């Protein structure tokens, strides 16, 4: 059973190799994504929520570096990364299925191989980053996705794609390097003899002063990757200008890496550091929710609106982290899954509309609900989830985060971030109204519904996930119950 996780991780890489040597691109990618999804589902079913520690741990001894930083290549799952690995494989499958029509068209036969290789590499990086149990490999895997994202965005993207892709590469690399500083600070602040990169061997032994010194580097480093205010400006344009599957994978999955990293490092090992910096970062996360929220209201294009909206929701995740309460942290895990699914759904459908109508400007769209009912229905489910409608995954996550923050005594911050729900309702409902209702515009008239099953499946998968987790959040929460002792 424990090798299964390694197989899930290796299957995208195997598909990349196969495509490079001439295997049919789309089929190989689909098989790899399916193998990953089935594998992670089997793992999730066999996961024992009552056991402590990591499960399905696979160590590959020859990869270990004993004298040099004590680096061990090991993969394993616990209540924190199991939901994320599952999210990765679900969104990964949807992203691979949702091929934009330009890429699948006849004249692009040659470009298809490169497209799928890069997409699979992003998937591989995301899977590895969440499954690794070693800081070094966790970091490396996250970076694996950078160059493929850059190449895909600049080649297949829309609008000001080259600028956005360059900005993304420089921004994320800066963030990663600051994070590297944070990792070094973390490593060298541990007492002699206890220094390790292995997550399983780490212990909370750092004194309070060292914790407060290490924490800001980690939060800023990870924060740039998660688009924490004021380091968020790369995200909206990058997501708006990238091809839909890349936005699905990056905004839906890869961006969660920063939150995941903090959940892994800062929460268990730097609690005093978290406490001493709470005020500063609460201001930043409120800016994420309120300032970015207001900026979102102002957007005139659907893709930028979704980009800003995904930045805004990161504020809630940070609130849950800084609450440091079991209930808030469970909420973070739940919201990461819900946000991943809903963002991927929205970006994917927005991509479908752009492919058909040729524009995403609100002034040129309207009345889609009559022309493309299924597409509209799916989009509205995603929009409702994003607002936080009960019954869909995001709601339970957000409510738990608010409970956690209230319990932690962050009354003002909680009260102000609840305003975010109103803000997101305002912009989402306005977007839904101007795109799907009103008079049918000529551009909207070009939009056909999702008629073929191969067009419908990727979004249906995501919607099913959203509803399933929304109705029965315990599905995910039960895995992390023992972890935070709640």
């Amino acid at each position, binding site marked *: 059973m424990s090798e299964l996780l390694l197989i899930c991780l290796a299957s995208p890489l195997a598909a990349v190799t196969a495509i490079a040597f001439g295997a049919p691109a789309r089929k190989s990618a689909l098989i790899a994504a399916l193998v990953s999804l089935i594998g992670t589902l089997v793992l999730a079913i066999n996961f024992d929520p009552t056991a402590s520690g990591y499960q399905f741990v696979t160590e590959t001894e*020859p990869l270990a*570096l004993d*004298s*040099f930083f004590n680096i061990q290549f090991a993969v394993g799952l616990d209540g924190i990364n199991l939901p994320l690995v599952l999210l990765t494989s679900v969104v990964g499958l949807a992203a691979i299925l949702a091929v934009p029509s330009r890429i699948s068209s006849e004249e692009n036969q040659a470009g298809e191989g490169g497209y799928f290789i890069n997409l699979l590499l992003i998937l591989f990086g995301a899977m590895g980053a969440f499954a690794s149990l070693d800081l*070094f490999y966790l970091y*490396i895997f996250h970076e694996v996705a950078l160059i493929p994202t850059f*190449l895909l965005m600049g080649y297949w993207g829309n609008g000001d794609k080259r600028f956005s892709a360059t900005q993304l590469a*420089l921004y994320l690399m*800066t963030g990663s390097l600051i994070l590297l500083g944070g990792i070094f600070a973390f490593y*060298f602040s541990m007492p002699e003899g206890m220094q390790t990169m292995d997550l399983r061997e780490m212990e909370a032994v750092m004194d309070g002063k060292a914790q407060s010194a290490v924490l800001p580097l980690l939060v800023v480093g990870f924060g740039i990757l998660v688009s924490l205010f004021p380091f968020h400006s790369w995200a909206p344009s990058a997501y708006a200008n990238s091809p839909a599957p890349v936005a699905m994978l990056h905004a839906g999955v890869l961006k969660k890496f920063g939150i995941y990293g903090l959940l892994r490092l800062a929460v268990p090992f730097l609690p005093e550091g978290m406490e001493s910096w709470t005020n500063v970062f609460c201001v930043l996360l409120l800016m994420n929710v309120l300032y970015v929220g207001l900026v979102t209201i102002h957007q005139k294009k659907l893709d930028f609106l979704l980009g800003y909206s995904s930045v805004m929701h990161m504020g809630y995740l940070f609130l849950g982290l800084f609450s440091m309460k079991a209930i808030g942290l469970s909420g973070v895990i739940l919201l990461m899954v819900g946000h991943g699914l809903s963002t991927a759904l929205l970006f994917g459908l927005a991509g479908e509309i752009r492919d058909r109508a040729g524009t995403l400007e609100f002034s040129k769209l309207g009345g889609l609900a009559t022309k493309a009912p299924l597409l509209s229905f799916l989009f509205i489910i995603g929009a409702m989830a994003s607002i936080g409608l009960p019954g869909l995954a995001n709601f339970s996550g957000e409510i738990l985060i608010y409970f956690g923050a209230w319990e932690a005594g962050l009354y003002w911050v909680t009260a102000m971030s609840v305003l975010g729900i109103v803000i997101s309702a305002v912009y989402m409902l306005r977007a839904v109204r101007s795109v799907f209702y009103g008079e049918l515009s000529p551009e909207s008239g070009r939009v056909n519904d999702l008629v073929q099953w191969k067009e419908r499946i990727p979004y249906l998968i995501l919607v099913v996930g959203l509803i399933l987790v929304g109705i029965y959040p315990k599905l995910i929460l039960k895995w992390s119950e023992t972890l935070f002792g709640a």
Partner: protein
Amino acid sequence: MNFMHIFSSPEVILLLTAVLILVFESVLTKFSDHAVRMFAIFGALLALGACFCPWSGALGSIGSSTDLIFYEADGLAQFFRLLFLITVIFVLWMTGDYQKRFPVAGREFCAIPLLTTVGMILVASAKDWTLVFVGLEIVTISFYVLVAYQRNLASSLEAGVKYLIIGALSTGTLVYGIAFWFGTTQSTQLDALAFVMSDDGALSTSVLLSAALILAGVGFKMAAVPFHAWAPDVYQGAPTPVTAYLATGSKAVGVVLLIRLFYLTGLGMQELESQVSLIIGILAAASLLLGGLAALPQFNLKRVLGYSSITHAGFILLGLSACWQGRELGLEAVLIYLVVYIPASILVFWILSTYADELDGGEYSAFHGLGKRSPLVAFAILIGLVSMAGIPPLGGFIGKFAVMAAVWEAGSYWLFFIGLATAVMGIYYYLQVVKLMYWNEPEEGGPTFHLSISTKVVIGLLSAFLLLIGLWPKPLEWMVGWVLTPS
């Protein structure tokens, strides 16, 4: 030390190969260029084998007594020997296509790199200033010839003159430094300072002065700021195989000398070490910033590599500056950095040398749509540049990771952040070429890329190395352990 010892040492094998090539060139002209080159590569391979040969002089030490050792093959020497020999094999291999392109290149073009390597290996194993100086001069003088080799090209001559003038100047400062060294310690031994210090303890001005002068001389070899002025023009003007050797071998010679001088023989001299570390740290910071900033606006890949080689010198110096007070991490980092930097460098220079015409001497305009015109060539450049930029999972990242970790451990946070800024600049200028190759559409009627078997083999070997070592750094750990274990 008998006859057998001498003739089976790598230096002598290389020397004999080079001399034989020169002799045969004048006597027997019927050998093809290809055969001569194969002979040169064979000589280098033989020397590589001799490094492991139990009866060869390669493994012993030479000296008049146990106190006075001129030459010793310890782990570090062995490491650098292998590095130089493997590099020269690739450089000689690279000259094949170059000779087809420029018929002016005679057979001595294969012999001189071998002589350069003799000098490099001597420096790697030398324990005495006289031998170091002889080795360094062999390296420098043979490079004078190689850089100006295309004597009918103005750019090559310009490069030669620049290299000659600055090189001669740096030799001058080096000799001056050695003279001060001798004046202070009464000895030409590299570890002589330790004996003087144990008697006295205080740090005399003349020691610092000599250290500074020697650093200037070595800084020239490594193209570190402020001794870098020659690098961009020489890199662009010199024949590409020579540039490749300058960027790799010449840099490594400076590194081995610095390691021997300040870290292996200077251990325990806290005061000198911390001062020298600070100077090296400042040189590193200047090299990083200047190289990085100057590479940003360039439009020629060879020139970009020239400037970026200054930043790589900066990263290496960064590692060296971090290994004072007996910290070994910095030293390990430098060795790892070299092992991952040199293959990436050779890979890119191989492409630039083999397709000099197709790529218009590295002008950016020639890279448009290369990803479609020749996927394999574009892939090789992608791997080489992304590795040099230090983006995981390629090998280059392991080097940067180790250097940055060493700097952080040593507590030089300002150097860490300068390194960080430079790395981000690197992303920008390396990705510039990647963008052109993959985002732009190819122009109509562009040149076609003929892939020879040796090009495919080289691309396969080097890119596989860079990819695998990034995901599986274990061999680097073994290597470092083997080099730094006292025999």
